[in-house]
């Protein structure tokens, strides 16, 4: 595998080539949403210009083309996540909807008092609140795998995990990559532990799917949720991988056109998965454009992207460590770091940091990163996050460090 020409790839992302507040944009917020290569925008245009029609129920040429493109997108997505059967891919708006689908459908049908739903303390609200609320609704007990360690050596407490994995645990949901801590969990290992007690596993792959190879069969999970917009695809589309046998046994989620087999006035028979879970007109254009994103990422190589992102994050973490009064969050040594680094400065609050950096053309994110309970536990009301993708460079990290130095100086008043 030859190394990609990163500088050349950067040219594929037109959005990056603009000035912000008079400075060349440095976009370090890809963990929130990624920029899109031109091929994705072209695919979107091409669909609307040439094939736009509603799917499934149409027999005219445009409709057949739209249906074929949509189902080809499902097949491509299955391949992208390593699923054997395209029927195991349900298109959703994104990670949040995918997890809600599992919590509402599988959860409501299978959870009851006495059961335990296990998640971890590092979950994004989208992989926390759905489980918290379905547990409240069904009477199941919600338990957390603790996050332990000091700031720069954080990780899941695996001993606690094994203790928590009792036969009452019906479902274990966890983030593959943490959007706040920059930790990548060993999903295959976690799933293997959970499987021993017969728990269903749900992997939130929002932060990893576009940044490294993700293979549901290698991981051995039952469900995996992801968002297109974080993997260089359009907003409004994402997916859920679910094992076919599980999906087919689940009650439908949303109801309406496209997911029914026979409707009578007082009863309805539903189609099997994946149609069962896709009520109404799906987001065809964005599903089709997602294919271009997957093709793009695989052409660059997700192994290479992972190495690139991780290298930038490590480079940034090392440089950040020099700043006075900084707390850097991160994985314990030996655990892979995702392509992002979160930190807090003693003298400058995250929002002030973000506003300052923005004046230097640098896009950062500050706040609780949809991770309030963890931040509270870490005693950090907020942190600042720089996140990297294949289009970021070392020079951009250098600009970040220069800006942060100025910020520290300004607020510490020295």
């Amino acid at each position, binding site marked *: 595998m030859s190394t990609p020409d990163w500088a050349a790839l950067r040219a594929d992302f037109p959005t990056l080539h603009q000035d912000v507040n008079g400075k060349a944009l440095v976009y370090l917020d890809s963990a929130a949403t990624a920029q899109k290569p031109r091929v994705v925008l072209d695919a979107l245009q091409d669909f609307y210009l040439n094939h736009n029609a509603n799917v499934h129920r149409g027999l005219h040429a445009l409709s057949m083309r739209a249906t074929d493109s949509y189902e080809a997108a499902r097949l491509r997505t299955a391949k992208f996540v390593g699923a054997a059967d395209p029927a195991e891919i349900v298109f959703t708006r994104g990670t949040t909807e995918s997890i809600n689908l599992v919590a509402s459908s599988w959860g409501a049908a299978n959870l009851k008092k006495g059961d335990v739903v296990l998640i971890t303390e590092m979950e994004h609200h989208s992989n926390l609140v759905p489980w918290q609320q379905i547990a409240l609704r069904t009477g199941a007990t919600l338990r957390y795998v603790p996050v332990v360690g000091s700031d720069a050596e954080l990780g899941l407490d695996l001993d606690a995990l094994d203790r928590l994995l009792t036969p009452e645990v019906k479902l274990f949901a966890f983030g593959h990559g943490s959007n706040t801590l920059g930790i990548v969990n060993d999903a295959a290992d976690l799933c293997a532990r959970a499987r021993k007690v017969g728990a269903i596993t749900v992997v939130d792959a929002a932060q990893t799917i576009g940044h490294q190879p993700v293979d549901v069969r290698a991981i051995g999970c039952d469900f995996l949720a992801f968002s297109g917009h974080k993997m260089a695809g359009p907003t409004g589309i994402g997916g859920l991988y679910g094992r076919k046998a599980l999906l087919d046994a689940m009650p439908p989620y949303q109801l309406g056109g496209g997911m029914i087999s026979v409707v009578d006035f007082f009863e309805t028979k539903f189609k099997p998965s994946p149609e069962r879970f896709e009520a109404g007109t799906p987001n065809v254009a964005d599903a089709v454009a997602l294919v271009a994103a997957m093709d793009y990422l695989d052409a660059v190589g997700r192994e290479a992207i992972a190495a690139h992102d991780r290298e930038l994050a490590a480079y940034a973490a090392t440089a950040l460590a020099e700043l006075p009064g900084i707390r850097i969050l991160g994985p314990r040594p030996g655990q892979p770091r995702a392509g992002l680094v979160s930190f807090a400065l003693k003298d400058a609050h*995250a929002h*002030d940091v973000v*506003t300052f950096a923005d*004046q230097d053309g640098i896009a950062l994110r500050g*706040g*609780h990163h949809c991770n309030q309970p963890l931040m509270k536990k870490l005693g950090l*009301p907020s942190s600042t996050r720089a996140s990297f993708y294949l289009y970021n460079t070392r020079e951009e990290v250098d600009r970040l460090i220069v800006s942060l130095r100025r910020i520290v100086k300004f*607020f510490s008043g020295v």
Partner: protein
Amino acid sequence: MSDLTDLYQQVILDHNRRPRNRGKLPTANRVAHGDNPTCGDQCSVYIRLEGDRIAEIGFDGSGCAISQASASLMTTQLKGKTAAEAQALFDNFHHIVTTGEAPEEISDVAAFAGVHSFPARIKCATLGWHAALNALKSEPTDASTE
């Protein structure tokens, strides 16, 4: 960084670094809490109302320089005022941060005029004020049992 020194005027940096009336007020009989879910800023305001006047006022919480400085400055402004006067002071402050029109007389609140160029930060600047006004409208609390 001209815009930024507009935003982060000396007054603001000073209030941020050395907040006035910071801390929970043990004798408070009015309390309210405000938060900005968008960014996680938090502010609690503690007031001891005597008759219809604010005899004492304090705040705590955490947040950005703008929210902390504004809460601090707010406490210095509201001390000794009635609820109606507090509302009028807030209206004035709100006008400043949303329009950038500072009053003629030189005053510390004028330091917040720069906020108006950063619309996303207006909520930060008004967080403490909202908590104070809510505290004034709240039911009396027995501070000792709180």
